[in-house]
């Protein structure tokens, strides 16, 4: 990596040879570090309970945020204060500062993460230790993480759109990798709604219908790879499975009470939702509908995705709940130490969220509609990313 006379990193240049910009590497590394940190942290809370600001899981998340914020800030300062730099030509103007759009989004994400830390700390002191994922400080943190991951994705896409040949192929692969981790982060937020005991209720599918296809479709369109959706869904699945199999290898026990379940190893997060199957179907059928009007693509894609997902996830949920799955491979016993003995997940009993058949079908209708709407948004967003140059 070369540096300019002023000591700042050399500006990003599309014609700098077959070299991936270091900001892209930084954002990619940060996305992966943060994903590992988040999975590890949730597992930590479900197994050990007690943590501090400086646990390894927290350090990974913080490192990812800091790395991105610093690297992007340096890039922005370099582009802003070097008027003749090549980076100027491939920069946007945000409040007088210059830099690639993706770096601003990633830097913004880093700032949001840093802001969420003292907010979360105060929240614990005022309202007690958090025992659910979705609280205002956590949403700010999640928004910050989304900024980093999407910032990295847009940065990579802009580079890719200006690149050609081997450089483009390299950036395309990074796009798909980042897209896969966008899915990982999005699915973490849906964990409370996609617990195995809820997979025979419409609630899970409504949750999966809202927004998932935006983050699957947009990067896939931008990457323009024949099997983009499948690859991204496969990255999410492989990451989740690796965490599912690796975490329980480590012995651990609760350090907080009340302890309702005997736990002697790190509790992993659940088996991945089978997104890879509908993603594969969409990729397979893509040539059939790529020329259709946008609204038809959205309708067909959204409905097909959700239909295939329900068709595979529903029976798979039955397998997950059955004695046949109670082994290290499926590891369905991924409930925390504080799960009461009579909880559905401990008894392997489905929870019927829908009061009756009408409620179920109404919910499923919402799921399909949300899926189609998300597909439409994904198409619009993906088409915009394809045009990104800065």
């Amino acid at each position: 990596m070369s540096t300019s006379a002023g000591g700042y990193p050399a500006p990003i240049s599309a014609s700098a040879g077959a070299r991936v910009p270091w900001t892209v590497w930084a954002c990619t590394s940060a996305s992966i570090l943060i994903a590992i940190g988040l999975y590890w942290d949730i597992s930590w809370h479900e197994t050990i309970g007690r943590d501090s600001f400086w646990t390894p899981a927290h350090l990974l998340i913080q490192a990812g945020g800091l790395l991105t914020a610093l690297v992007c800030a340096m890039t922005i300062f370099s582009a802003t204060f070097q008027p003749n730099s090549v980076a100027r030509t491939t920069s946007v103007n945000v409040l007088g500062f210059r830099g690639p759009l993706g770096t601003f989004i990633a830097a913004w994400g880093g700032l949001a993460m840093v802001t969420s830390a003292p907010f979360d700390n105060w929240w614990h002191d005022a309202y007690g230790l958090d025992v659910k994922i979705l609280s205002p400080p956590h949403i700010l943190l999640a928004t910050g993480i989304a900024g980093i991951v999407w910032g990295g994705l847009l940065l990579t896409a802009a580079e890719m759109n200006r690149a050609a040949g081997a450089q483009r192929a390299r950036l395309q692969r990074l796009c798909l990798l980042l897209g896969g981790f966008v899915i990982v982060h999005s699915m973490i937020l849906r964990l409370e709604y996609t617990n195995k005991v809820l997979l025979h209720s419409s609630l899970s599918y409504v949750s999966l219908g809202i927004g998932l296809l935006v983050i699957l479709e947009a990067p896939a369109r931008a990457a323009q790879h024949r099997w983009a959706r499948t690859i991204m869904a496969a990255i999410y699945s492989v990451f989740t499975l690796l965490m599912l199999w690796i975490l329980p290898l480590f012995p651990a026990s609760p350090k907080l009470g009340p302890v309702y379940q005997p736990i002697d190893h790190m509790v992993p997060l659940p088996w991945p939702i089978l997104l890879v199957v509908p993603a594969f179907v969409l990729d397979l059928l893509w040539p059939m509908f790529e020329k259709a009007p946008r609204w038809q693509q959205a309708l067909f894609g959204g409905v097909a995705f959700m239909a295939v997902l329900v068709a595979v996830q529903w029976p798979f949920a039955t397998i997950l709940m059955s004695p046949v799955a109670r082994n290290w491979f499926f590891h369905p016993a991924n409930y925390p130490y504080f799960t009461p003995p009579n909880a559905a997940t401990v008894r392997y009993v489905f929870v019927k969220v829908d009061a009756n058949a009408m409620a179920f079908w109404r919910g499923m209708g919402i799921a399909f509609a949300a899926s189609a709407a998300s597909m439409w948004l994904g198409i619009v967003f993906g088409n915009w990313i394809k045009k990104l140059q800065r």
Partner: protein
Amino acid sequence: MRKLLPLLFILLLPLSTPAHVNSPDVYFDGLAGPYHLLVTVKAPAVVPGIAQIEIRSADKDVDRIEVLPLKMVGAGAKMAPSADVAQRSISDPQSYHGQLWIMARGSWKVQITARGARGSGELDVPLPAISTNTPGMQKSLGVLLSLMGLALVAGIVGIVGAAGREADLTPGQQPEPARKKRGHLREAIAAVIVIVILISGDRWWKAEAATISRLNYHMPHVQTQLLSGNVLHLQLDNPNSQERNRFNFLMPDAIVMDDLVPDHNHIMHLFLVRMPDMKSFWHLHPQPTAGTQFTQTLPPLPAGHYRVYADIVHANGFPETQISEMDLPAISGAALNGDDSGFADSAATDKTAQLADGYRMVWEQDSSPLKAQKAIWFRFRLEDKDGKPVQDMENYMGMAGHAVFMSNDGNIFAHVHPAGSVSMAAVNIAEGMPAAHDMSKMNSTMDAKPLAGEVSFPYGFPKPGDYHIFVQVKRAGRVETGVFSAHVP
């Protein structure tokens, strides 16, 4: 094997303990096997939160002390989390400090394991855990977060504008005016959306805060009414019954009123203290009649404005003190009977209280001044008219004595025993015994039979001020009450 310890009280008092009134710290003196420990616990103001535990061993041969939290009853009482090792103090090797996370409101116990030259021993201490208040945000933090928030809002608006204006331009191309205008329009829309999001976020925050506030412990106010025949009628209150389960899995213990258990022989211990002179003091034991109602035939007592404190204990070991105030006329009722006790007109003294038949109760104080939040032993000696220690003290409700520490304005009240300030019923439950286990039949190396003429109580005043200490012992079949004044600078 653990010995049964009648005087084991570890009181984990939150800021507004349910077991007393505004006397948050817990003082407990007991045996962990062969080791004599004095335990002080400062409970968290917010639960989930951290309890601070101070332990002082009277013996020098303790090597290690471990602490862990358990629910008192139910599934959470069966499996324990890993124990924490208490840190030994550098300046005093017999003192240890530990911390425990208390994760749900309700009835807990702290299990203390002491290990040393004489083996190991265990001590179970009841811990009622509640949230009492919700602190606000410090101004400096609020300013910092606001500034960072402003930067985030400005940033996202600028980013949206830039995305619409320039992001799809080829390198080197400048945006024409129409694009710039479009960029500003998108910035305006983004600003509106961000403001809507912030307003929604603020409403969400307020909703969460309101839910938390509803789950804070509210002091119950017992309803009192004087009926004909000098009968006092009491109706228990339960302002904490409407708790919603905010958490999916950490359920707070519900507080209900149909699960009361006797605490040292009585379902309710009722204290009446005339204010402001505090010269009329009564310790009575109302009988339950129906549901949450109790009646008490009042003894002869002078007219006045009385503070009422009703101590009860629930089946899961959770104690409460329900409070009230009432004006009573002069009562010329039936004489005291059973365990009921009190006096109609007795002023506090600094050191020596005159009792019946020339007997005296002497407060043995050392020269060091009283200090708030410091655990000390309050020792009282009973003497006959010749100044000799009394030899015929008896158990009063299974103990050497009972004490009430009360601030002169009535806002601080603690009902304390020789082992400390916990409920004895809760101690029994913590030890796995029935709540109503007869303490007087306990076999213990500690005062099952009172020392001749002396009783002592571990306690620490919660804050500076003026207090009355009412000390009750029994001799020759009669309960004697000495009253002392204390000034805590």
